[in-house]
């Protein structure tokens, strides 16, 4: 009851100077809103990164062939490099923690159907590839084991390939040709669209799955072979490579790290040429989590500074108020207010200011996502070039409000009100009532 009255009185006193109170509240408002916004944005960015890594599969290990630096290659002739089929067999059969293994071969080629052309990636793989890269069949079916063993000339098209080469026809049953090899493949399936994966450290580049054609790896080996001749600037350059990638799936996530170290030592024969790299998404995921934590601490620090500034604003205005209301303090003391009563009165006023700032700040914080979307659309509309030049993380960030940030922001705002209100309040209480009464 007493508190209620004190709060009511505080609001009344603040209402005497609405503009001043509003501006003071604004300081806290901005501080609290920025705590929530910055945390939400950093969470959004790191969540996107984590999702991308997680989409590689936390229980997988990827071993990729890397083109060695040119000084290590034989200048005459063609040096074979990268992973071999023998290594694939060995990995698959000798490491007990490996559940399954997929050999992958990738070649950039031009695809053709009638008069339509499209540059894309010809991927030789096994049926498990679909599951491990989260591909979804739209029509028909993905490559089967039987097709692989029979070395069938069947292929599966990614969504964009199907759209470009077959704008008006059903691709199933049609033959897509690869002019470079005078070869053609019968379409048995079309996939749904899949988002591109971003480059995530190490040797794992960004993968755009939209212009892929998938064929059985044994078919690719038989019909195209290991030697790839590419015409570049009038010269033919060649490389010999058996497998571009081996993706291993480990039995359980707990065994990933152990398996990864076994594989790294198994790959030591490649250390001289540096033509193989091991990518462990789980490790990347853990790194990303650490980065997220650092990022959040940093963002939180920035927001804390703005709250500090808001707090100083409160202190500044309260010191002015205390001086201005010296007479009132004198009257209250004469009429029986104890020092504690005066401290409480001014503390309640600062707390009211900071709590109002806190609540409105939280409300503004909750509008973070629509506000960012709106902002993005505005920039997109008025400055499309600027937008295009921004990095992808910035363009695509979806703020995710961290639930803990709301009570934290509120608590901090209240704390700021009390901490920065304490000094002016104590100063008010320490006044000599006789002198305060004489104050004009």
């Amino acid at each position, binding site marked *: *009851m*007493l508190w209620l*009255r004190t709060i009511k*009185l505080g609001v*009344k*006193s603040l*209402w*005497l100077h609405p503009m001043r109170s509003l501006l003071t509240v604004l300081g806290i408002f901005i501080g609290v809103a920025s705590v929530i916004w910055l945390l939400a944005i950093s969470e959004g960015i790191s969540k996107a990164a984590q999702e991308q890594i997680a989409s590689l599969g936390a229980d997988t290990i990827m071993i990729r062939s890397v083109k060695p630096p040119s000084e290590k290659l034989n200048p005459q002739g063609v040096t074979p490099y990268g992973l071999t089929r023998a290594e694939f067999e060995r990995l698959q059969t000798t490491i007990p923690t490996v559940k399954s293994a997929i050999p992958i071969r990738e070649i950039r080629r031009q695809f053709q159907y009638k008069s339509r052309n499209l540059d894309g990636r010809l991927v030789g793989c096994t049926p498990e590839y679909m599951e491990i890269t989260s591909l979804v069949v739209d029509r028909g079916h993905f490559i089967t084991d039987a097709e692989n063993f029979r070395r069938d000339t069947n292929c599966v098209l990614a969504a964009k390939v199907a759209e470009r080469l077959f704008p008006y026809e059903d691709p199933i049953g049609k033959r897509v040709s690869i002019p470079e090899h005078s070869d053609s493949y019968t379409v048995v399936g079309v996939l749904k669209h899949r988002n591109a994966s971003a480059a995530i450290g190490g040797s794992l580049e960004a993968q755009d799955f939209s212009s892929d054609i998938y064929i059985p790896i044994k078919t690719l080996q038989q019909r195209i072979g290991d030697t790839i001749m590419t015409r570049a600037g009038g010269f033919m350059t060649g490389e010999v490579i058996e497998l571009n990638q081996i993706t291993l799936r480990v039995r359980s996530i707990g065994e990933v790290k152990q398996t990864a170290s076994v594989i790294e030592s198994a790959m030591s024969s490649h250390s001289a040429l540096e033509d193989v790299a091991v990518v462990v998404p789980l490790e990347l995921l853990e790194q990303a989590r650490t980065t997220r934590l650092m990022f959040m601490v940093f963002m939180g620090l920035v927001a804390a500074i703005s709250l500090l500034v808001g707090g100083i604003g409160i202190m500044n205005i309260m010191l002015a108020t205390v001086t201005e209301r010296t*007479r*009132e303090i*004198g*009257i*209250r*003391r*004469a*009429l*029986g*207010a*104890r*020092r*504690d*009563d005066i401290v409480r009165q001014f503390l309640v006023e600062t707390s009211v200011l900071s709590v109002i700032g806190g609540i409105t700040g939280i409300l503004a914080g909750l509008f973070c996502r629509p506000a960012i979307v709106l902002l993005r659309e505005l920039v997109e509309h008025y400055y499309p070039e600027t937008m295009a030049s921004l990095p992808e993380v910035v363009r695509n960030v979806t703020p995710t409000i961290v639930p803990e940030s709301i009570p934290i922001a509120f608590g901090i705002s209240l704390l700021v009100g009390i901490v920065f209100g304490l000094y002016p309040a104590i100063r008010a209480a320490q006044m000599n*009532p*006789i002198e305060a*009464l004489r104050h004009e």
Partner: protein
Amino acid sequence: MRLACSVIDLKKEYVLKGETVRALRGVSFDVPEGDYVAIMGPSGSGKSTLLNMLGCLDKPTAGGLFLGDDNVAKMTDDQLANIRSRRIGFVFQSYNLIQQLTVVENIQVPLYYQGKLGTRERQRCIDLASLVGLGDRLSHRPTQLSGGQQQRVAIARSMVNDPYFILADEPTGNLDSRTTAEILTMFDKLNEEGRTIILVTHEDDVAKRAKRIVRLRDGLLQSDVMNSEVERKQAAEAALVEVSTPA
């Protein structure tokens, strides 16, 4: 007869710019309940210092000051605040109302610091406002009232805690003669009803209305004389005449 307040050899010294000022050098007098005392004296006589002591705003250097049975000289700051809210009714020259509060809320302030906030207390404040003739201005703020009205709010406020005495410091100093007469008539009436009033003034006309005049000079008691009933009546009539005569 019980004493509202008792001053025994009261001394107060304070240091001002390195020099010790002996504001009160041993003053003694009693104020029985129901008395109406005017304290007079030129500036520098220790009048204000005595007022601060009586109002429990300051502590004496030596001597005793009793309000009822409590020795103010030995109280802590919080105890002084407590006794101010329960036992003393202040009326100031410049009214000293709180600007952001209404008439009723201003009257209620001393009760507020006793933690008394019930509807009964609120009704008491409304009754007091009516008693001083402001029953129709309960929700007005001080800035919406005239000087005389503000002083009447202050008088109502001084009575809200049933104090040992009303301590009035030049209560008519800021008022014109008509309002002065009004306020002094109100004091007369309150005193007749049994309330103790201690009034500090430098105006003879005002002092003559009291039952007793205490004069201070150089920190000492100069005189303490009773005012005859006749003199009081004359003073009251003179004030009325002055008001009714067109200027």
